[in-house]
C-alpha cells in the first residue's frame, strides 16, 4: 500500500510475516487474537470430542485409565475458557473498540502486543503438561485443593504447576489488556463521542475491563498461594497443616464468577451491534442497556459463593438472593434485544441468525441457571450434568454464538471480502442442531443424577441414551466447523468485495475503508448520536444536537424511525 511508505512506522518494513510478528497495530493484533483463539478452540474441541467419545457408552474404552480422562476434561475446560472465549472476545474488542470510538489505535500499542503474545506462550506451557511425567493438570479447570495440592493422592506431577504458571500468564495478559481498553475508552474517543454516544459494544468492553482489572488479580493470588503450597512447603489450603481448603474456593470464585461476565458481556455487546443493524432500528432502550450492563458488572462481585452452596461454609440466603437479583438486569437486556427486533425490517443475514441463536440459547442458559440459584434445588443438582448443561448454554449457546455473529459481522471490515451467506447458514444450522443435541440431554442426565467429571457409569443407571445422543451432537458441532473454515478460505480469495459499509452499519468502523488503513481514519463523520453513520447517511441528526445543512427534514426522520428516547415529541 502506498500509505506504508509515508507512515513513519513503515521504516523497517520487512514483508509479511515479520510485519505480523512485530506489529503494534490493534487491527492486526485483534486478528491475531482471533486466529490464535480459534486455533485453541479447535484444540479444546478435540479434547471435548475425546471426552464425549469416552462417555458415549458405559465402560472405559478410549482412555487407558480415569486419570487420563481427568486430564482431558481439565485441559478441555481450561483451554476453552482461558485460551478461547476470553481472548477471542478480547480480540473482537481489540479490533472493534478503537475503530468504534474513532481512535487511531489502542492507548498502549506495545503493551497490546505484549498482552497478545503472552497467550500462545501460556497455551504452550499448559499443553506442555502432557509431556511431563504424570501428565497434564487433571484437577478440573477449577483445580480445587486438595485435588490440586502436593501429595501422593493429589497432583504430584509438574503438569499442575504448568497449569498454574500458564494461568498466571494468561491472567496477566488479561489485566494488561483490560487496562489498555479502559485507558483507550476513557482517553482516546474522537471529538463528539461522549460516553453516552458510545456503541454498546464499547460499553460492554468497558464493564468487562473493569471486571478484569478488579477480579483477575484475585485469582492470581489464589494461583500463587497454590503454587507456594505445592512447591515451597506452604500450607494455605492444607487443613491438616492448619490451612483452609475452602479458602481457595472463595478466592478462586471471587475471580471466576465475574469472569463469567467477562466471558459473556462482550458477546452481548456484539449482538447489540448486530441486532439494530439487521433490524433497521436503533437499539431499544440504549441507556437502560448500559445501566443493565453496569448493574451486571457490579452485582457480579456479590454472587461468587453460589458456586459453593454445598460447602456449608457460606451464607446461603445472601448469595441466593444476589444471584436472583442478577437475573433482573439480564432480563432488561432480553427485553432490549427482543424489542429491537420487534416490528423491525429483519434481514436474516448470517450475523443476525447467530445473534438470534445467542438470544434463544442464552435464554435457556439463564433459566436453568436460575434453578441452580435456588439453594434447595442446587443441593440436588450441584456437580451434576445439569451444571454442565447450564454453563454450556451460557458460554457456548451465548458467547460462542455471539462470537460467530461478530466474526460474520466484522469479517468484511477486517478483510474487505464478504463471507458466503449460504455456507454461513449451513454453519449456523449444523452448529445449532448439534449444540442442542449435545447439551440439552445433559439437563436430563443431571436430573437423573449423573455426576460431572466421571469417565465411566453403570450401564443400568438409565443414562445410556442421553449420553449417546450428546456424543452424536458433539460430533455435529465439530462438523459445523468445516463449512466455516471452508467459508473463510474461499471468501478470502474469491469472496464478494465488501466495500466500506456492506451492512449499512451505525457505528464508526463502517466510515473507513475495508480493511482500514493503519491509522484507521482519514476523516471522521460528525458524531452527534450513538449512530453517527446513520446520521451521515440520512442527513441531519434526529437526536438533538445541532442540525446539518438540510435541517428541515429532521422531524420527518424522527417520526419514521420512531426513535423515542429523546424528549416527549416522538
Amino acid at each position, binding site marked *: 500500500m502506498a*500509505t506504508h511508505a509515508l507512515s*513513519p512506522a513503515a521504516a523497517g518494513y520487512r514483508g509479511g510475516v515479520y510485519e505480523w510478528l512485530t506489529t503494534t497495530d490493534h487491527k492486526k493484533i485483534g486478528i491475531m487474537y482471533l486466529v490464535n483463539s480459534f486455533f485453541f478452540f479447535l484444540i479444546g474441541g478435540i479434547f471435548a470430542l475425546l471426552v464425549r467419545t469416552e462417555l458415549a457408552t458405559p465402560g472405559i474404552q478410549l482412555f487407558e485409565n480415569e486419570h487420563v480422562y481427568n486430564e482431558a476434561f481439565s485441559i478441555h475446560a481450561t483451554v476453552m475458557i482461558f485460551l478461547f472465549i476470553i481472548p477471542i472476545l478480547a480480540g473482537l474488542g481489540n479490533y472493534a473498540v478503537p475503530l468504534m470510538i474513532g481512535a487511531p489505535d489502542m492507548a498502549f500499542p506495545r503493551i497490546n502486543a505484549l498482552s497478545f503474545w503472552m497467550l500462545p506462550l501460556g497455551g504452550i506451557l499448559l499443553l506442555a503438561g502432557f509431556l511431563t511425567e504424570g501428565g497434564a493438570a487433571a484437577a478440573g479447570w477449577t483445580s480445587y485443593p486438595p485435588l490440586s495440592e502436593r501429595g501422593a493422592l493429589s497432583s504430584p506431577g509438574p503438569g499442575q504447576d504448568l497449569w498454574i504458571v500458564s494461568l498466571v500468564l494468561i491472567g496477566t495478559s488479561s489485566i494488561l489488556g483490560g487496562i489498555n481498553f479502559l485507558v483507550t475508552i476513557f482517553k482516546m474517543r474522537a471529538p463528539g463521542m461522549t460516553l453516552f454516544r458510545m456503541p454498546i459494544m464499547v460499553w460492554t468492553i468497558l464493564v468487562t475491563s473493569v471486571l478484569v*482489572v478488579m477480579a483477575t488479580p484475585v485469582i*492470581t493470588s489464589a494461583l500463587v498461594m497454590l503454587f507456594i503450597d505445592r512447591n*515451597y512447603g*506452604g500450607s494455605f489450603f492444607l487443613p491438616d497443616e492448619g*490451612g483452609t481448603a475452602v479458602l481457595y474456593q472463595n478466592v478462586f470464585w471471587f475471580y471466576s464468577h465475574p469472569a463469567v461476565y467477562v466471558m459473556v458481556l462482550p458477546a452481548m455487546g456484539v449482538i447489540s451491534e448486530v441486532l439494530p443493524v439487521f433490524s433497521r432500528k436503533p437499539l431499544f432502550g440504549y441507556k437502560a442497556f448500559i445501566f443493565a450492563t453496569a448493574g451486571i458488572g457490579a452485582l457480579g462481585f456479590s454472587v461468587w459463593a453460589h458456586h459453593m452452596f454445598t460447602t456449608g461454609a457460606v451464607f446461603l440466603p445472601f448469595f441466593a438472593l444476589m444471584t436472583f437479583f442478577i437475573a433482573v438486569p439480564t432480563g432488561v437486556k432480553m427485553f432490549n434485544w427482543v424489542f429491537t427486533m420487534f416490528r423491525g425490517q429483519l434481514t436474516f443475514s448470517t450475523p443476525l441468525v447467530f445473534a438470534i441463536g445467542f438470544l434463544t440459547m442464552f435464554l435457556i442458559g439463564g433459566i436453568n441457571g436460575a434453578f441452580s440459584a435456588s439453594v434447595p434445588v442446587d443441593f440436588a443438582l450441584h456437580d451434576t450434568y445439569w451444571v454442565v448443561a447450564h454453563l454450556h448454554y451460557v458460554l457456548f449457546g451465548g458467547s460462542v454464538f455471539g462470537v460467530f455473529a461478530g466474526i460474520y459481522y466484522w469479517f468484511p471490515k477486517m478483510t474487505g471480502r464478504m463471507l458466503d451467506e449460504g455456507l454461513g447458514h449451513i454453519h449456523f444450522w449444523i452448529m445449532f442442531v448439534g449444540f442442542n443435541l449435545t447439551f440439552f440431554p445433559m439437563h436430563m442426565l443431571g436430573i437423573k443424577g449423573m455426576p460431572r467429571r466421571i469417565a465411566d457409569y453403570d450401564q443400568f443407571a438409565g443414562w445410556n441414551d442421553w449420553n449417546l445422543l450428546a456424543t452424536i451432537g458433539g460430533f455435529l458441532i465439530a462438523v459445523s466447523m468445516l463449512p466455516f473454515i471452508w467459508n473463510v478460505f474461499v471468501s478470502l480469495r474469491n469472496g464478494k468485495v465488501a466495500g466500506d459499509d456492506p451492512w449499512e452499519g451505525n457505528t464508526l468502523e463502517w466510515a473507513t475503508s475495508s480493511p482500514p488503513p493503519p491509522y484507521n481514519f482519514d476523516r471522521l463523520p460528525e458524531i452527534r448520536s450513538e449512530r453517527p453513520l446513520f446520521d451521515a447517511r440520512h442527513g441531519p441528526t434526529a437526536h438533538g444536537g445541532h442540525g446539518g445543512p438540510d435541517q428541515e427534514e429532521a422531524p420527518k426522520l424522527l417520526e419514521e424511525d420512531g426513535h423515542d428516547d429523546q424528549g416527549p415529541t416522538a
Partner: protein
Amino acid sequence: MTTAVAHPEPHAASGHAQRGISNPILGMLLFITSEVMFFAGLFAAYFATRAANTPWPPAVFAHILDPLGPIIFATILLIASSFTCQFAVWSIRRGDRRGYLRNIGITFVLGVVFLAMQVYDYGLLFSEGMTMGSGPFGTTYFTLTGFHGAHVFGGVLMLGVILYRGMAGQFSAKHHDAVEAVSLYWHFVDVVWILLFTILYLI
C-alpha cells in the same frame, strides 16, 4: 486511500485527548487498582488462616513479631522514602532538576536499604528455623512480606530508571509523566507496607 491519506503523524487524531489525566498515569492508576486486588486476595487468605489457628502467632515464633525491633527502622525508612519521592515530584513540577535528582536519589537509596534490611531479617528468621514450611504462620508471613518485597524491588527498578532518565535530562516541568507514575506506584507500595506492618506486628 489516495494522497489524502498521507498522514505522517499516526496519533494526530488523538490530539484532542491532551486534557485531563494523561494516558500513562491513568494506566498506572488502573494497574495499581489491580495490584490492590492482588494484595486483597493475599490479605483475605491471611485473615482466614489466622482465624483458623489459635494461638496466633504460635508460641515458638511469638518473639519475632516485636513491633519495636529492627522492623520499626525499616518501616520508618520506607515511609520517609515516600516523602522524599513526593518532594522529587514537586521539584520536577517546578522544573527544579537538581532537587528532583537529589530527592529521587535518596528515595532510591532508601528503597535499597529497606530491601537489604528485609533480606537480613529473612536471614535471621531462617537461622531460627522459621521457613515457608513452618505451618500457616510461616507460610502467610513469608508470602505477604515476600510479595511486598518483590513489589519494593520492582519499585526500586522503576526508581532506578527515572533516576537514570533524570540524569540524562529527560524530564522537565512539562514532561515528567514517568515520574508521576512511578511516585504513585511507590506510594502504593508504602501503603501496603503500612497495612502489612499493622496486621502482622500490631494487631
